[in-house]
């Protein structure tokens, strides 16, 4: 059972306090999008062995959504950060590069 720090209220929260929200940094496609774009947005998800960016909600705490950068194999947590951003903070990306050189993810390196 994971422990993640909620970046909004600062609590080190047990997984039972949290709700998982799937892949982070999805770009929403609306009515003008093509079938492929919309399919990618609605259904296609990363499921990596390794570095991953996820959405979590501190649902039994402050109620806020946040993002977590973590490793699905080693369970290392590289950091948590605000959900109100389109990409992970530079500090977290550097930290990941330090431990997992050459990592890449759908949208970032």
């Amino acid at each position, binding site marked *: *059972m*994971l*422990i993640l720090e909620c970046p909004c209220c600062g609590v080190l929260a047990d*997984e039972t306090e949290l709700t998982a*929200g799937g892949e982070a940094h999805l770009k*929403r*496609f*609306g*009515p003008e*999008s093509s*079938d492929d774009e*919309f399919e990618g947005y*609605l259904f296609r998800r990363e499921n990596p062995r390794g570095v991953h960016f996820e*959405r979590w*909600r501190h*649902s039994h705490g402050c*109620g*806020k*959504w946040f993002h977590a950068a973590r*490793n699905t*194999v*080693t*369970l*290392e*947590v590289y950091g948590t950060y605000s*959900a*109100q951003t389109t990409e992970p903070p530079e500090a977290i990306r550097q930290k990941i590069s330090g*431990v997992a050189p050459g990592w890449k993810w759908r949208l970032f390196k």
Partner: protein
Amino acid sequence: MSQRLPKGGRLIDRSTEMSFTFNGQTLHGYAGDTLASALLANDRMMVGRSFKYHRPRGVVASGAEEPNALINMGQGSRFEPNQRATTTELFSGLTARSQNHWPSLDFDVGAVNAHLSRFLPAGFYYKMFIHPRSFWKHVYEPFIRQSAGLGQAPTERDADTYEHFYAFADVLVIGGGIAGLEAARAAGASGAKVLVLEQTAHWGGRAPVDGGHVGGRPVEDYIDSLVAELQAMENVTLRSRCMGAGVYDHGYVLGYERLNDHRPGQDGPRHRLWRIRAKQIVTATGAIERPLSFAGNDVPGVMLASAMRDYVVNWGVTPGQRVVVATNNDDAYRTAIALKKAGVDVLRILDARETGGGALMNTARDMGIRIDCGRGIGKVTGGKRVKKVQICAQAGAGGALEEIACDAVAMSGGWSPVVHLWSHCGGKLLWDGDQAHFRPDPSRAPTGADGKPFVTVAGSANGHLGLDAILPDAGEAGRVAAQAAGFKPKRAAAVAVDPTTEAPMEPVWMMPAQARPALRAKAWLDYQNDVKVSDVRLAAQEGYESVEHTKRYTTLGMATDQGKLSNINGLATLADALGEAIPNVGTTTFRPPYTPISMGSIGGEARGAVFQPVRETPMYGWHDSHGADWEPVGQWRRPYAYVRPGETTHDAVMREVRNVREGVGMLDASTLGKIVVKGPDAGRFLDMLYTNMMSTLKPGKCRYGLMCSENGFLIDDGVVARIDEDTFLCHTTTGGADRIHAHMEEWLQTEWWDWQVYTANMTEQYAQIAVVGPKARVLLEKLGGMDLSKESLAFMEWRDGKIGSFDARVYRISFSGELSYEIAVPASQGQAFWDALMQAGADLGVMPYGTEALHILRAEKGFIMIGDETDGTVIPQDLGLNWAISKKKTDYLGKRAQSRDHMTDPTRWKLVGLETVDGSVIPDGAYAVAEGTNANGQRNTQGRVTSTYHSPTLGKGIAMGLVLNGPDRMGEVIDFPGTDGTVYKAKIVDPVFYDKDGEKQNV
């Protein structure tokens, strides 16, 4: 025979006799016995029958690894099946019954399966029970069900209580054997907060039985002083009868404490589930001896050598009078020596190694025990008890060299470290060829949130089998864990330990090595699930290469013991059959819990009334005292109907509906979700959330809206009221309030975070009462206050004001088609307001009505209900709700999805009304059948019922349903077969059955 020895037994107290019953017969044991040792003391070697062949089964082990001695324990409200006799502490009055036999343990009809075993190989069920298809339901399934399962299910409610307990430790030590205690001392000396869990009632594990000296003292004395030292340390907590059940992410551990199993009926919880967060974990979980695979190794009386030694040394019980020992390592010699010392005849030690053993062999020989090297067991014969052993050359095919009459066999195939807890959270293993076992790979430990290892392994769990290696390894593990937890460990003084003088073991996966097929077919790997060497070889022959697939195909290791004895032997057999090296075949996954834990402990206090809190409206007590027949709706309970004396529930519902249509009724609508959405961008936000336009709504007005998921499916509906320019109040369904509030927050926080909007769930702040029916206005006007005329409060408007003396917000909205006011007052005023309305309406015949009347009233009007007309696959267009979907808006959640191929398919089933031809009520969930059958031979369908009721207003059965091309088929009659064989004929009609023009709600 097995019996109590005249003396000995370090764990029993011969001055305290205890009586118990087994299969109804009264037997006696001593305080300190386990049920298994007490049964053996009474010559009850055979304790059950196996799962598949119903073979007689005896006690084979002495601890948590026992696969055979499973019993039905207790009676009535304290009955529990599948309890292991080897881990059940004896108490006076214990009642136990053997399992999986009929009619009796001694004579069992299912044992005929054993004679058919040639026809019941691996995968038998998969191969046999497929054809013919129709046999499954009436022949195969009843047969399998009748023969499946070991123990019986309890019939009474559990009389015991259970609890959860939260704990935090710097270093958690799992296992209270000598390694665990040594590691705990080393960790504790650093000042770290240490918690030690031991699954049995005793400290020290196997060490006192195996013997040896530490610092010149017998190891048992050393353990006593270790325990005393730890007990004196304030930062160390010791818990016995508490098993480390599972290790999970980021140092989370479940402990399972059995507080009252050995003294049932005592005050306090029976089991306690420890939910532990540990910075570091030391697994000192010991090792388990492996059986040898020889023909007849499942005959009662064949036992693990270490278990036999345990029974002699710990409980003063010998499992036999004339014992043969078979081994591939030196450890089994300790059993021979212990038996001999206790006065038991050890007829022969069969050592599979050509060169035999080390110093222990010489000791045994000096005691007069005959030792045959390079020999093994060809076959054990005997039905319910070992009768004789055929000796053969280990290297051969099983030709008998000699036969010895005996009544017990001790076997040892080497030792496997208990790696379960190391592996639960991702710790990897390496194959140790010298000792022929998997042990933890220290370079691939489970890692925590910081990416660093959080589990260290100690002692025999780490592959160290000699005391001289175990103690330093355990001390080091304790120091490593303490340091990793942020403490400064202290250097330890070295102690003198007896050096190990054992000869190397030699792996023996089949005894004899070239055993004939007939022998392999009687050599058991998994005792509980009846998996033999021949079954695993057959699986390999049939192409099962993966150990995970072989496990599922043969059921090897899938019994309640989870293969503690069988896994390594099974995968070695598979590797041999595949011609692969053992490490290449690998192990199956180790999953928690280590041994089964009670469902009661998992539930803890959460049962009965506290399993889930019930949400109560302010008028809950009134409903309860006025005949409410409760219906759960989400976490709420709502009155289904108010049943009067002499009425059936159906009578009450019919009365309530008629009273609303003809007079005036009152509904407690407080459970409906009430979410305030506020801010300069509130209108824009709601335009995205609802399918229709909300930003154009004028303050003072209400509008019905639909909400869809981004998949396009309808998820909720309700009336939105615009309070002022910046503020909206959104009503949701009762079950949807929290979900929809979360849905709003998700979009606000993660997509449109720059929009200026706040949401607040105000559901419980208001009591909301619907006053409904032609006399609704008359009733409210009797209380006085605000003007409720059509002119000043028209349909789909709301106003704040006073009704009587109550501050009220009145919505003129209707879910019944009648003149209707939904009035919100502060929750604290709810009951008083309800009372005032009931009093004022008494002479008008006002009655409360429940959710079933509400359903019928809305169905008569063709109004949809989320959860009835929708099921997560229905879009608004299916329900004829296109009028509530904005054509002007460029975007809303679900809009893009609703233009996908599947969503615009003209053959999607559409909502219609259904009217039975004979006035009866179509069964809920019925399907409309079409001509022909599908590829599976099932009747084709063309629609289904979503809501169905008897309408007292119309005096007949009405329903709503989704039907293929339904709106174009008005007047057509279609068939709905019921499960009772009746076919209900129903005419497709408009879903609005009552007051099509909506005049009644608009007066």
